[in-house]
């Protein structure tokens, strides 16, 4: 009996062990989370026939024209669009009246009704608008007129408007909020009963139609979002005080507490109850559904995939199962455009699948998104699908790892966007197509149309593997009083100068580690020959750099350190910075009393002005859509959107740079109190309690920058590992325990391995 039992047990154990690997099957949930900051996406559930669902947007231009002004708070109720139009003349800055906009989708007619208040007051600005089913609406005005010297808290006035735009003051919230530490209304809404619910910091308030406070409920931490569902139940979402988890709870006003509601909402955003009992959560990344029963979070769409830019507060109306409507606002050609968007769930089959150019990247920016949307809306054959790995609020390092891993193992991209530090690593592996060949065969854009010195700086094995729309120049700004008209300096000269000024801060960030970095940035080629894989740190230049860095302290008392003041009083004579636009040049011009000299990073070769590229667009060698990718890149390069061109530095296309110069040197003037015409500032820079106004560059300034741009010839090869090894090994030299030669030997030994590995 016992033997039999043991035998059965053994067989059972063997079966369990055999079945063990079955448990190792691919976890779909985990796999789906690859690109959505941990949330699975609807498009990743692919059936056996290779079909999947995705949401698609269908656009219809709204015939609502607002000549001067813009529309907001649009909401669709009973097939009518309700919105508020604010009249505003951008040129003169004149603010006009607010108007109620009603567009009837059935009759295709629109009405503009001026808002008028029965008390004729014209105070405050509209902070929230709530449209009701019957066409009436409530507006919360924020009024800053009654501010005292000690209080910056505004007054909140709640008005009720009829369908014709005539408003009556319901009540003021001033008394209700009196005595509260923070009365900023972070969320508000009306219930079906007409009660006004709002939240301020960590409290939720319910006010009756007569303006009497009905109840107040404390929430454990700052409220992220508040909404009312169809049953007039109020919900708040907030981060758990014990961790990063977001908690969603119903507010129980009767018992003055938060009820036990559902938890497990992984996305912060605006929540709306859908007919199937799930919640639609929208934020600046896209839309998600949350099922309170199963706790499942699912990404429905990214705004960009629907050809829209991030809508944090989009008013999405659920018009049925898997169908939504919203109004899309876009700003093109100097005016606001409005489109009615119908979003529907579509089963993607072989027949209706769209041809896509997939671009893998860590994150996108609004300027690039505009180009992508424009391309998608005009291209008939292909769409560009951005696949960003990082989403706001998710783990950046984890996103970087996922992106690298996907790019190296099994990329499903046609293109990637990398920065100059990552680009080279993949280009050397032969992952990218030769852009030079595409340029050679192109009738519109040739290599000679670019600043070729900028392209040359990023070539790998003599080939162009990336399109670089713009570059920044990493350099050093020196006091003209010290550097005169010098255009470059060597590490040896840097050490000599330091010896002349031993008692000043010298650098902008006068600490050893920074000094070492500054000295090595452009000099690395003196010590490492990437082509041959040889290292030579046993030379006088490296000893000079070590000696220079040793003259600085390990730490700095930042509390009593003011770098701007030090530049003014001559205690700081040189500062390292990126020349990405003209504002940094102008600020240094103002900070160094005798003017500024762009001296470059210290180096024995050339002038030490080095390029950095934030966005390098590379086409994957494995892509079948190389020509199509190139078409998109041409659109990107030819995009004359001024903001886009100057977003990441100076345009690399010569024609774009000339447009950039023209745009930048434009000046606006105003007449000051003395009747003198003055140039208007274009922005400013602040530090502590100080603010510097930045003015448009002069033509002379632009010529200085143009010369620097044209003379730069190398790219920064910043490798964290190399700097870490040098920093670590240089420490005993700084502490006086080892000689420069001993330290150089060790650095050479360790870095030789590192370089050889990658050679």
């Amino acid at each position: 009996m016992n033997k039999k039992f043991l035998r059965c047990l053994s067989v059972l154990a063997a079966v369990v062990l055999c079945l063990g690997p079955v448990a190792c099957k691919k976890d779909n949930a985990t796999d789906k989370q690859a690109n959505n900051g941990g949330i699975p996406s609807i498009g990743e559930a692919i059936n056996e026939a290779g079909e999947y669902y995705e949401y698609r947007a269908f656009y219809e231009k709204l015939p609502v024209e607002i000549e001067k002004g813009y529309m907001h708070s649009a909401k669709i109720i009973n097939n009518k669009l309700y919105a508020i139009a604010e009249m505003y003349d951008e040129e003169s800055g004149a603010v006009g009246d607010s108007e109620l906009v009603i567009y009837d989708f059935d009759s295709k007619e629109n009405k503009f009704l001026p808002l008028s208040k029965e008390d004729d007051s014209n105070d405050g600005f509209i902070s929230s608008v709530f449209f009701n089913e019957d066409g009436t609406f409530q507006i919360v005005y924020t009024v800053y007129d009654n501010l005292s010297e000690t209080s910056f808290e505004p007054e909140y006035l709640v008005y009720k408007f009829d369908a014709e735009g005539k408003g009556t003051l319901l009540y003021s919230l001033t008394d209700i909020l009196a005595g509260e530490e923070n009365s900023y209304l972070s969320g508000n809404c009306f219930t079906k009963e007409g009660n006004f619910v709002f939240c301020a910091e960590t409290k939720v308030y319910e006010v009756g139609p007569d303006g009497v406070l009905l109840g107040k409920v404390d929430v454990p931490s700052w409220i992220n979002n508040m909404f009312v569902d169809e049953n007039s139940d109020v919900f708040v979402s907030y981060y758990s005080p014990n961790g990063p988890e977001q908690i969603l709870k119903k507010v129980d006003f009767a018992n003055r507490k938060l009820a036990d509601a559902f938890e497990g909402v992984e996305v912060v955003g605006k929540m709306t109850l859908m007919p199937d009992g799930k919640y639609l959560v929208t934020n600046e990344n896209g839309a998600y559904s949350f099922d309170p029963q199963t706790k499942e979070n699912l990404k429905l769409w990214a705004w960009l995939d629907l050809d829209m830019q991030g809508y944090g507060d989009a008013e999405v109306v659920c018009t049925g199962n898997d169908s939504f409507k919203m109004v899309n606002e876009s700003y093109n050609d100097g005016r606001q455009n409005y489109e009615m968007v119908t979003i529907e769930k579509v089963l993607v089959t072989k027949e209706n699948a769209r041809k896509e150019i997939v671009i893998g990247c860590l994150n996108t920016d609004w300027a690039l998104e505009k180009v992508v949307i424009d391309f998608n809306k005009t291209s008939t054959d292909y769409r560009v699908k951005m696949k960003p790995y990082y989403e706001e609020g998710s783990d950046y390092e984890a996103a970087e790892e996922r992106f690298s891993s996907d790019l190296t193992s099994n990329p499903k991209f046609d293109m990637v966007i990398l920065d100059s530090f990552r680009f080279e690593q993949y280009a050397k592996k032969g992952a990218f197509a030769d852009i030079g060949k595409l340029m050679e065969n192109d009738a519109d854009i040739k290599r000679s149309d670019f600043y070729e010195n900028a392209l040359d700086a990023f070539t790998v094995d003599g080939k162009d593997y990336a399109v670089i729309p713009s570059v920044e120049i990493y350099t050093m700004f020196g006091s003209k009083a010290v550097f005169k008209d010098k255009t470059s300096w060597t590490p040896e000269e840097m050490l000599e100068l330091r010896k002349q000024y031993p008692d000043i801060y010298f650098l902008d960030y006068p600490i050893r580690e920074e000094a070492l970095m500054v000295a090595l940035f452009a000099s690395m080629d003196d010590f490492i020959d990437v082509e041959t894989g040889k290292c030579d740190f046993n030379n006088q230049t490296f000893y000079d750099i070590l000696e220079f860095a040793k003259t600085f302290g390990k730490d700095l008392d930042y509390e009593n350190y003011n770098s701007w003041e030090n530049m003014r009083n001559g205690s700081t004579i040189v500062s390292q910075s990126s020349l990405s636009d003209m504002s940094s040049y102008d600020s240094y011009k103002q900070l160094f009393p005798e003017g500024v000299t762009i001296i470059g990073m210290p180096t024995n070769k050339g002038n030490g002005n080095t390029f950095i590229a934030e966005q390098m667009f590379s086409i994957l060698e494995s892509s079948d859509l190389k020509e199509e990718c190139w078409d998109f890149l041409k659109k990107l390069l030819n995009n004359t959107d001024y903001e886009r061109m100057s977003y990441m530095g100076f345009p690399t296309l010569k024609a774009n740079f000339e447009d950039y110069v023209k745009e930048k040197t434009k000046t606006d003037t105003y007449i000051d109190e003395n009747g003198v015409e003055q140039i208007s500032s274009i922005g400013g820079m602040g530090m502590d309690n100080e603010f510097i106004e930045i003015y448009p560059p002069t033509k002379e300034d632009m010529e200085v920058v143009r010369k620097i741009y044209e003379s730069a010839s190398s790219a920064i090869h910043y490798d964290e590992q190399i700097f870490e090894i040098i920093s670590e090994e240089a420490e005993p030299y700084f502490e006086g325990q080892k000689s420069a030669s001993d330290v150089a030997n060790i650095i050479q030994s360790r870095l030789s391995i590192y370089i050889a590995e990658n050679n």
Partner: protein
Amino acid sequence: MKEKKEKEQKQNNQLKKRNRRQKAGAALFLAPSLIGVFLFFILPFFVVMYYSVIDNPINAEFVGLQNFGNVFRNGAFKMAGRNTLKFSFIAMPLAVILSLALAAMMDRKIPFRSQFRTFFLTPMMVPVASVVLIVQVMFHYNGAVNQFLMNFGVDKIDWMKSDQAQVVIIFLFLWKNLGYNMILFLAALQSIPAELLEVAELENANKWQIFWMIKIKYLSPTILFVTILSLINSFKVFREIYLLTGDHPYDSLYMLQHFMNNMFKQLDYQKLSTAAIIMSLVMIVIIGALFLVENYVGKDVEE
């Protein structure tokens, strides 16, 4: 007659049935291991082979032995290979000879034998992190060993960042592995037939002759086993070196596993896979050679 035949037939059938059942049972019990070996060893090995013959996972174009050529020309790989072989060919014989000597000593009736045995086994119980910490405290540039040497007017030595680094690691390797090897040899020594040794003594064989002519022959399978074990352990010394010095140590400490580990970090699967295949081929050759030697030395015993 017919009945007998039928009985035999029946017995044969029963025998076949039992055989089939036994085979099925054996297969069932072997299955977990076989599945495990297939999933975690054989399948990855084929994946590694695949990666070693393509240009990169993005293009996945067959490039034949080009990756092998690249790896053989790579300076870091050559250095890692040289250092690993050097370390193994110094540390492995030392580990075998010293542990055999210790076992021979423990096999004799010396005082405090039990305490000595415990003493040599103690390093096995110490966690690697603690070992590393102790070595760091002792062999740091400002560590205990240098402080001690300075008392005798000796200049400071940068133990972990100079050519002396391998000496420290060999010392660490021996300290960690001698005890276990010694126990294996001790067990083997105690299993040599006592009557054989008595006969040898009766026939006036001296101790040296007994050791070489009898004990070594009987110990040859254990020597082979300990040698292979030491060889494997010598490759595994990377763990201690990595904890002591990180990804890119001083060149004398750079081992093959550093190369492979760093290639993994850089997601360079081609170099990683190619190096792994080369390393396994070298291991096969060395272990094959050791088997041949063992066959030759131990053939008298087996016969």
